[in-house]
């Protein structure tokens, strides 16, 4: 346990170790640790940003959905309106058509009645003529009494 030159050797060794550690050990390890710290911080920041983006997107999608719903109900209302309009139009048209058909039918019926009356009249006059002819025989000249008979027909 004497103090001797070991002292100097230890001091030199100590200095060399510290120098080596300062030169080759500490800086790369610290650099790596700092790089990892930075990476972790960046990652956390990115995660935070992602979360914000997600919240924004959710808000935006809810808004879009709401807008779309509004639009859809608008369209449905418009469709309903249009449908009832079409129905009304159809009804109106049908009524016009119906009226027209009825009018045509009435006109035809009247025409038919008129024709039937005309026919009836001619037939009645023919019958009357035939009857009168039978009654009067030959005395009555068909030709001479024709205008009389026509007058009769007109009266009927």
């Amino acid at each position: 346990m004497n103090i001797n030159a070991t002292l100097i050797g230890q001091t030199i060794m100590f200095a060399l170790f510290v120098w080596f550690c300062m030169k080759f050990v500490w800086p790369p390890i610290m650099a790596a640790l700092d790089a990892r710290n930075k990476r972790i911080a960046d990652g956390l920041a990115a995660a935070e940003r992602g979360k914000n983006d997600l919240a924004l997107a959710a808000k935006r999608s809810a808004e879009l959905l709401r807008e779309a719903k509004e639009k859809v109900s608008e369209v449905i209302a418009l469709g309903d309106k249009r449908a009832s309009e079409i129905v009304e139009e159809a009804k109106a048209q049908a009524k016009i058509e119906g009226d027209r058909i009825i009018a045509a039918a009435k006109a035809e019926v009247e025409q038919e009645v008129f024709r039937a009356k005309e026919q009836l009249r001619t037939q009645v006059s023919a019958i009357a003529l035939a009857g009168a002819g039978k009654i009067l025989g030959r005395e009555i000249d068909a030709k001479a009494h024709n205008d009389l008979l026509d007058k009769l027909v007109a009266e009927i």
Partner: protein
Amino acid sequence: MSTEGLTTSAYIKHHLQNLTCSIQEGHFHCAHTAEEAKAMGFWAFNVDTLLVSLLLGLMFLFLFSRVAKHISADVPSGMQNFVEWVVEFIDSSVRGSFTGRSALVAPLALSIFAWIFLMNLMDLVPIDYISLITQPIGIGHFKLVPTTDPNATIGMAIGVFLLVLFYSIKVKGLGGFVGELTLQPFGKFGLPVNLFLEGVNLIAKPVSLALRLFGNMYAGEMIFILIALMGASWVSFSFASTLLFSSQIILSLGWAIFHILIVTLQAFIFMTLTIVYLDMAHQEHH
């Protein structure tokens, strides 16, 4: 016990004797006794201290520089994890105690902590095991724990002291440093008193560093030797011998477990005090 028929005091002396060698009359010679070692004077080397501390320092630097070479900022694994854990521990210690900015202090603290820790750790190797290796190759003395040699601790303390002086002068200038030593706390008329007080203050730093570490490790080693002596007094299968032998096992286990704390604590104290002294050297106080 290494040799039969050794007296207790011879056994203790044997274990406290370094392998001291010097070059005498042109050839390398190692001392066999304490008196011979003393007679060698200053220009002798404790080969065991130098060798073990060199190997341990190289082991630390090899391990850490290998990790530092292949280090990546990705997810760490295995050895890198351990190294980063140590480095972060040192870094937070330095940040806590050292207020300035310096590229030297943190690596210095790491070197001190790791080196002293490893040297102290040699204390846990059973004290007689090393002679199983050294005796057959003709080496009489070999102290495995460099920090129980005051040369090792004083050597490191001198290194720290030189750094304290260097930074004191660098930061405050030579005038500022001399002024700090002489002009306070009593002003310029109390110069001799000031110089005495501040001089003691300054010298106390390396002395306390060196002697605290040496004293703790030396005392711990001493107790290991004393515990080892208990089993050495074995004579026969008597009750007393068996009791002593089993006491040795239990006590050395207990002391070794307690020593794990001391080993770490002393390395940590040396490191922290170094940081604090360098911090004081960087600060302009008063």
